[in-house]
C-alpha cells in the first residue's frame, strides 16, 4: 500500500499514538545526546542526525530485569518478569541500517532458545523506517548489500519527498494496520519526487571472498596488524545495531535482588575469562578477530546472514580510529 504523509500529519500521527497510550520510541535528545527512546511529546523527535546507539535497544535493552528474589526468614520467593506486560510500541524513524538489523537479530533470538524478552517486544512493535538522504564517510550500508532506501525490517517505510512530507509504503500487515487505523492522516500518493537517497562512498565488499579468507585464516599474522591498536573497550559492540551478546548477573543483597540481562562485548578481556583464571582470548588481537569472524563468518555459517548493516557507528566512535570498512575491504582483496 502506498500513501502520502505530510510533515504536519506525521507529527499529528505521533501525537495521536502517544495520546492513545502507545509507547512511541523515536530518536530524541537525552541530556544532549541523540538516542532512540520513548517520546513524551511529538515535538521532541530529532530526525536530522543518526542516533548514537542503534535501535536494537527497543527490543534488547542495555539492561533489563528478568527476575527478582526476596527472602523473608527461610522463605525465598522468585518472581519472573512477564514479557506479556510489555507495551505495544511504535518505533519511528528507524534508519535503514538500524531497521535492517532487527530481522538479522530475529535469527539468533529465536534459534535454539526462544528469547521471550526480545521476541515479545518484537511481536508488539511496529517499525516505521526512514530513508537516509545524507551519509558521511563512515557510512557503508551499500558495501554490505543494503542501501539508504532499503526497507528491510520496516513495517512501514517513509521516504522524504520534494516539497515536504513523506511517501509511505507498507510492507507488512502491521504496517497496513497502522495506516488503516489512522486513515484520516494518510493521503493518496501525490506523485512528488523522492529526495535523492544518500550515497555512501565505501566500495561494495565481496562478502563471499571475505568469508572465504576468514574460513581459512583463523590463525594469521594479519590479525596482529589489524588489532594492535584496539584498546579493548565495548564502544563498537554497544553502538552496533547487530551485536547482541549479553551477560546475566544477579545483583542485590542477601534479602532482595534482581537477575539482570545486560549488554556484553567480545572486546572485553573479561568476556572469555574462565573461572579457572585461564583466558583463551588472552590478547586483544584474538578478541578483535572474534568481532570480525562473528560478523562475517560465524553468523553467516549459522544463519546465512552478515552481522553488519554498515551504519558506521563503530568507525565514528572507536577511540583509536579502527575502521571496520577498511579492514573488511582489505580482507576481501587478499
Amino acid at each position, binding site marked *: 500500500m502506498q500513501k502520502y504523509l505530510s510533515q504536519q500529519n506525521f507529527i499529528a500521527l505521533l501525537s495521536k499514538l502517544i495520546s492513545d497510550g502507545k509507547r512511541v520510541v523515536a530518536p530524541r535528545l537525552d*541530556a544532549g545526546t541523540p*538516542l532512540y527512546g520513548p517520546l513524551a511529546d511529538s515535538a521532541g523527535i530529532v530526525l536530522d542526525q543518526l542516533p548514537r546507539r542503534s535501535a536494537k535497544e527497543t527490543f534488547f535493552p542495555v539492561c533489563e530485569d528478568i527476575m527478582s528474589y526476596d527472602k523473608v526468614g527461610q522463605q525465598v520467593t522468585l518472581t519472573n518478569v512477564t514479557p506479556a506486560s510489555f507495551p505495544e510500541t511504535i518505533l519511528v524513524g528507524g534508519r535503514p541500517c538500524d531497521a535492517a538489523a532487527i530481522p538479522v537479530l530475529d535469527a539468533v533470538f529465536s534459534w535454539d532458545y526462544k528469547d521471550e524478552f526480545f521476541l515479545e517486544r518484537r511481536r508488539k512493535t511496529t517499525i516505521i523506517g526512514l530513508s537516509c538522504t545524507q551519509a558521511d564517510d563512515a557510512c557503508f550500508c551499500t558495501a554490505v548489500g543494503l542501501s539508504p532506501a532499503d526497507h528491510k525490517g520496516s513495517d512501514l517505510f517513509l521516504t522524504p519527498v520534494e516539497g515536504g512530507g513523506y511517501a509511505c509504503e507498507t510492507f507488512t500487515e502491521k504496517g497496513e494496520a497502522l495506516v488503516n487505523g489512522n486513515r484520516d492522516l494518510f493521503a493518496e500518493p501525490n506523485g512528488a519526487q523522492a529526495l535523492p537517497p544518500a550515497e555512501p562512498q565505501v566500495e561494495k565488499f565481496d562478502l563471499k571472498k571475505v568469508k572465504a579468507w576468514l574460513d581459512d585464516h583463523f590463525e594469521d599474522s594479519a590479525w596482529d596488524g589489524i588489532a594492535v591498536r584496539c*584498546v579493548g*573497550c565495548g564502544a563498537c559492540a554497544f553502538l552496533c545495531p547487530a551485536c547482541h551478546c549479553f*551477560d546475566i548477573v544477579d545483583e542485590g543483597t542477601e534479602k532482595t535482588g534482581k537477575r539482570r540481562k*545486560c549488554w556484553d562485548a567480545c572486546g572485553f578481556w573479561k568476556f572469555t575469562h574462565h573461572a579457572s583464571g585461564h583466558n583463551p582470548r588472552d*590478547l586483544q588481537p584474538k578478541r578483535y578477530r572474534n568481532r570480525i569472524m562473528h560478523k562475517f563468518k560465524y553468523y553467516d555459517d549459522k544463519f546465512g546472514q552478515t552481522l553488519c548493516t554498515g551504519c558506521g557507528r563503530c568507525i565514528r*566512535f572507536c577511540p583509536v*580510529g579502527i575502521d571496520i570498512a577498511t579492514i573488511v575491504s582489505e580482507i576481501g582483496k587478499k
Partner: protein
Amino acid sequence: MTNTIDTSIYVAITEAIQGEVRRILSEGNVSAVIGYAAARRKGSAQPTVIVQPDDAEKLIFSAACVNNLAVYLTKAKKEIPKTGKIGIVVKGCDLKALVGLMGESQLKREDLYLIGVPCAGVLASTAQPAQPLTSDTIAPKCRECDARLPTGCDFVPDQQPVIPELERRYSAEIARLEAMPPAERWAYWKEQFKKCIKCYACRQVCPFCFCEQCLCDRNKPQMVETTPRPAGNAAWHIVRGMHLAGRCAGCAECERVCPMDIPLNLLNRKMAKELKELYNYEAGFEMQEKGPLATYDEKDDQSFIK
C-alpha cells in the same frame, strides 16, 4: 567569533618526526615507534606502531592526532612488545601522563625515546577529522593547555606554535556546577551518568587505568554493580574520579572517547583543582612516586576529623 588556528607548522613537524624515526630505527637502538598514521576517512589519523625505518614515512602529525599514545606503553596493553627502547610521539599533555607513569614505576625513562610535538591544539570529539582547527573545533583541553612545548624529550622539532587566547571552558563549567545547590548538582550528574552504557572506553584509553583487574570488573565480592544502571554507573565514575585524583593530568581522553558524551574530564579537573588548593599539587610536571592522596604527613590538615 570563530578564529582559525594556525596549524601550518604540522607539515614541518610531520617531516621532522619522519626523519627522526627513520634515523632512530635505522641506527637500531630503538625497536619500535608508536605514532600516528593517516587513516581512510578524510583528514583522519589513527595510532600506529612502526618497526621498519622505511615505514617512518607513514607517520604524520595533524590536528586529528588526538590520541594519548601513552596508553600503549602501560601493562594493560600487552600487544606492543616492550623489549628494547620504544619511541613514542607525545604532545605536552600526553607527556604529563608519561611523567606520572614513570613516577609510579610503571615505565623507565631510559626505556623510552620521547619525540615531543610542539602543539597548537587538536580537534574536539565533536568535530569531523577533516575540519580545520578553529576556536570552535579545538578540543576543550587545548583551550587551557599549559604544555604546548614538551620538555625533557629526546627530540622536539623546532617549530613554535602560535595560539590565540581562548576562553577556558572547564574552569567556567566547574564554577557553574560549584555554584549549584547540591541537589541540583546531583541531578545534573544523575542525568549524565544515566546515559553510561559501561562500555569502559574511558577506562581503556586512560594511561592510569592499568590495574591488572579493575575493581569494577570484580564479582567475588562485587564492589560496584557491573550493570549499566544509574547506581552502578554513578559509583563507577566516582570511584574512577577518586582513583585518578592527584594522578590525572588532564589528557581528557576519557571524555573524548565517551560515546555517550558524558563530560568526564569535569570530574577529573574538579579533583585536580581540589588537590591544587589542598596540597598545592599538580600532576604531570615532575616524577613523584606518590601523589598527595597516597602519602601521609603529620602536618596534613586534619580539621575534617570530627
